[in-house]
């Protein structure tokens, strides 16, 4: 088999992988609004999106030009060079998109593809120019530089236009409908339905169905030239239908709007972005076919690729089926969606992104500007706006299909309407807007206008948005450089380089798969820890106890590992423990948040009952801080290459560790199983531990006096001992709270029996 045929087989395999990773990333674009608002059960949303994708695939118009001639001029390349470029592009694309999916960051598949093509084409062109002794300036003849600049402009335009449009549209919609939109929807439902669906229909016609066989070129031309007529006619039609629906039936008109919007975006995605994933391999196959139809396949130039190629409908349908399967089963797709939905969430809660200096500056600056602007707005206007935008009307606890929605249906419909409008407008004005960028930035704009980014969450959300936007530029840089590197290696070293890079690709994918699995597991634990969906006091208390049990068990394991690592002076293990410590701190914060929720649920109960939980907060924080202090102290000590403990000290630390672990472990078992506390046993362990610590403190004084222990080591020793004692004291306190609660429940049960 010749190397090029082998490369084509690899390209086909990579096309399948690219479909999977590509859909995993792009699914967030069309699922975001419906999943976030919980418009329907998950399977209904998925069925609608799948149907949209399958329709989109059948409407897909030809092959994407950019793969064949958009970035480089094919007439200047021969088949082996093009196959090398396409291989480098596909390998990079699979790796890059998989990397973004693993971290749950949405990015543009078009931008990545364009920059990969650019990188690989530049690599091959440079080598060609250099080996033929030409001037490097001739490189510009090979590359379509204008297209590249347009794409970069697209990123910037998408960010600004979509964000501003989203924010303004949401602000005015909320002003009209308020957070308690049911009443206003009865009144203006027809207009709203007409407006949103006319925009979405226009979007379907412009983006989705433009390549459909049932629309003749004349019809498409008529639609593009009579945009306002189409918009007005559909507005009038839909307005009448929706006004009838909202006036005479109990149908919530926002639901069909959101589902149709989801269908439209899914369809547009399949119709336009599908070619991002299979366009390059198909271009490779057509290059191979063209070359082999001539007498000299290795030297003939590829002018033929400039001609339009009609895609095989069966092939497109097969790709569509793979995309649908990925949509249903990909866990990474859910991770990407959860990033978008999490950043746009109306409620406060656990934030995925940490604060950064830039986000703090931005938030402070924006708050400052708002404060200044607000001084110029008349008081009456401010009061009126505040009344219309009163968030108290938003139902934070309402559960839909087993989960609490992240935002309401009105916001979801605005998201879909504005995204469709911006993309349609951009397409008709020939602006290179990315669907991903637009949908993401619209979602962020609407959440800003809805005051979802309050002072409790703004810095984290802004930091998240900056990370995602940074990722878009990073996509372009990474796509270009990796593809350049891969292209050069494959062009110079041929088959060995291809095999090596394939192995590297497989290895990295396996690694990211494992990493993602681990992260999923962790986030699953965090999700389980959250009391988001618990609304009953007893259930909340029980869950809090269970979580505290898991927390103590984790502290026990982590401290055990930490002190063992101290004995072995194992810095790497200490670093691992520090990593776990971050997780423990996160858990502690979640449990504390849950205790607050329990307190909130207990607001009608006895104050003294509620007070117990505030004590629990203090104890949890003290345990978490004690754990962190021990880990950081020992890590710093051994990072600075100070001496380790002597045998006597190690033996004493081991005693303390064993007793503390026993205390933590048994308490955790009791909290987890909610079984009757053998309080005496735990108290005995605590007393034993106290005695040990007192005795060991005295021993340490003797060691200091005899010069057997240096200052830093003594400080560390006392630090560990004190923290261990403090952790055990607070554990006992937690146990006391549990014990009281247990007897309280027993009393409750007996009262009920009476």
């Amino acid at each position: 088999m010749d190397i090029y045929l082998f490369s084509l087989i690899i390209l086909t395999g990579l096309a399948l992988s690219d479909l999977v990773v590509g859909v995993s990333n792009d699914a967030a674009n069309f699922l975001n609004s419906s999943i976030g608002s919980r418009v329907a059960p998950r399977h209904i949303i998925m069925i609608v999106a799948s149907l949209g994708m399958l329709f989109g695939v059948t409407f897909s118009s030809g092959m994407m030009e950019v793969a064949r001639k958009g970035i480089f001029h094919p007439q200047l390349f021969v088949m082996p060079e093009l196959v090398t470029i396409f291989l480098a592009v596909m390998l990079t694309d699979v790796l890059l998109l998989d990397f973004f999916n693993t971290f749950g960051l949405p990015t543009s598949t078009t931008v990545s593809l364009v920059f990969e093509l650019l990188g690989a084409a530049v690599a091959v062109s440079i080598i060609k120019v250099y080996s033929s002794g030409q001037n490097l300036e001739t490189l510009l003849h090979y590359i379509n530089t204008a297209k590249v600049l347009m794409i970069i402009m697209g990123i910037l335009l998408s960010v600004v236009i979509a964000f501003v449009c989203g924010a303004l549209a949401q602000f005015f919609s909320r002003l009209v409908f308020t957070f308690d939109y049911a009443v206003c929807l009865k009144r203006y439902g027809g207009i709203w339905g007409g407006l949103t669906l006319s925009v979405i229909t226009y979007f379907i016609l412009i983006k989705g169905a433009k390549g459909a066989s049932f629309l003749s070129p004349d019809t498409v031309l008529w639609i593009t030239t009579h945009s306002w007529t189409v918009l007005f006619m559909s507005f009038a039609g839909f307005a009448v239908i929706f006004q009838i629906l909202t006036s005479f039936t109990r149908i919530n008109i926002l639901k069909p709007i959101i589902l149709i919007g989801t269908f439209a975006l899914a369809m547009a995605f399949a119709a336009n972005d599908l070619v991002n994933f299979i366009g390059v391999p198909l271009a490779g196959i057509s290059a191979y076919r063209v070359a082999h139809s001539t007498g000299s396949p290795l030297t003939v130039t590829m002018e033929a690729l400039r001609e339009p190629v009609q895609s095989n409908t069966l092939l497109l349908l097969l790709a569509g089926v793979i995309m649908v399967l990925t949509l249903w089963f990909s866990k990474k797709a859910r991770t990407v969606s959860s990033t978008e939905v999490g950043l746009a969430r109306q409620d406060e809660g656990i934030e995925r992104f940490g604060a950064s200096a830039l986000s703090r500056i931005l938030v402070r600056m924006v708050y400052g500007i708002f404060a200044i602007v607000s001084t110029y707005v008349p008081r009456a206007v401010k009061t009126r706006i505040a009344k219309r935008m009163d968030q108290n009307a938003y139902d934070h606890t309402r559960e839909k299909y087993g989960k609490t929605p992240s935002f309401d249906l009105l916001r979801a419909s605005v998201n879909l309407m504005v995204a469709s409008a911006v993309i349609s407008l951009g397409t008709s004005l020939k602006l290179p807007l990315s669907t991903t960028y637009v949908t993401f930035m619209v979602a962020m704009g609407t959440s800003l206008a809805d005051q979802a980014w309050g002072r409790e969450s703004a810095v984290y959300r802004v930091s998240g948005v900056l990370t995602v936007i940074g990722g878009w530029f990073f996509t372009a840089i990474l796509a270009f450089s990796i593809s350049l590197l891969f292209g050069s290696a494959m062009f110079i070293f041929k088959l060995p380089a291809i095999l090596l890079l394939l192995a590297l690709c497989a290895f990295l994918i396996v690694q990211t798969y494992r990493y993602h699995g681990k992260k999923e597991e962790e986030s699953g634990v965090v999700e389980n820890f959250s009391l988001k969906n618990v609304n009953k006091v007893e259930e909340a208390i029980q869950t809090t106890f269970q979580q505290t049990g898991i927390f103590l068990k984790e502290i026990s394991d982590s401290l055990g590992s930490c002190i063992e690592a101290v004995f072995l002076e194992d810095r790497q293990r200490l670093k691992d423990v520090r990593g776990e410590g971050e997780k423990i701190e996160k858990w502690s914060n979640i449990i504390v948040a849950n205790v607050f929720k329990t307190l909130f649920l207990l607001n009608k109960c006895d104050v003294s009952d509620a007070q117990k939980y505030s004590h629990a907060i203090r104890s949890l924080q003290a345990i978490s801080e004690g754990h962190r202090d021990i880990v950081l102290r020992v890590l710093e000590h051994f990072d600075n290459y100070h001496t380790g403990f002597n045998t006597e000290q190690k033996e004493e630390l081991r005693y303390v560790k064993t007793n503390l672990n026993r205390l933590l472990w048994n308490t955790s078992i009791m909290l987890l199983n909610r079984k009757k506390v053998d309080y005496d046993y735990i108290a005995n362990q605590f007393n034993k531990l106290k005695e040990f610590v007192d005795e060991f403190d005295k021993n340490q004084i003797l060691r200091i006096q005899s010069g057997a222990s240096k200052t830093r080591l003594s400080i560390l020793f006392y630090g560990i001992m004190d923290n261990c004692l403090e952790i055990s004291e607070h554990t006992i306190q937690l146990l006391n709270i549990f014990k009281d609660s247990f007897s309280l429940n027993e009393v409750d049960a007996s009262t009920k029996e009476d």
Partner: protein
Amino acid sequence: MRLPFFNLFITSPFDELQEHAEKAKECVWAFQQAIECFAAERCKAFEEYLTEVVRLESQADSIKRRIRGHLPVNSRLPVSKFQLFLYLKEQDKVLDSVEDTLDWISYRIMPGIPKELQKDFFLLVDSVIEPIEDLSRMVAEAKKYFETYSDRQRVIVKDIIRNLRKREHEADRLEADLKKKIFAMEDDPISTFHLIRLAENIGSIADHAENAGDMMRAMIARKKSSIFNFRFRE
């Protein structure tokens, strides 16, 4: 050859082994309390502790049966099934010994432990419960080792095994001292027999924990590749 990639498709039996070890760890408080209760001659709660241990032992037995019965026939395990079952057997014996000890006490609940021997008995109990507690940590660390095959992780497991041996030696020493003291007391033969057997039962807990550690040591031993075993001369 060990290929980490294949680990993706293997269901690890170590999760269940750890669950089994944690049942043993869960017994510790009831065991310790039962001994203290027996010593203090206020054994009203003894039955409760015994019931708790029996309950946990029966749960551990279910886990053992699950491991034995549901280990996939064709899965690529990181260790041989033979070694795994031997390990499980030893780990299970730890729990059996705890139960046997309490059963032995229940046959002659009075007159308890003489005052002059109480401290030694408590020390012996203390020395055997640490190895029980270490078993679950050992399995957890071994699981991590079989996922990565890193030398660093192997050292951690070996360190725990070393500690198990140390505690077993300490328990042996305490058991021997205790036996000497019991015989020196020249009490009635039945009490002497009861206490001697009790000390032996308690000591056997550490023996089984150490045996489990040795089995684990065999499991984590580096397997030499046959290519390097080639010899020119027989």
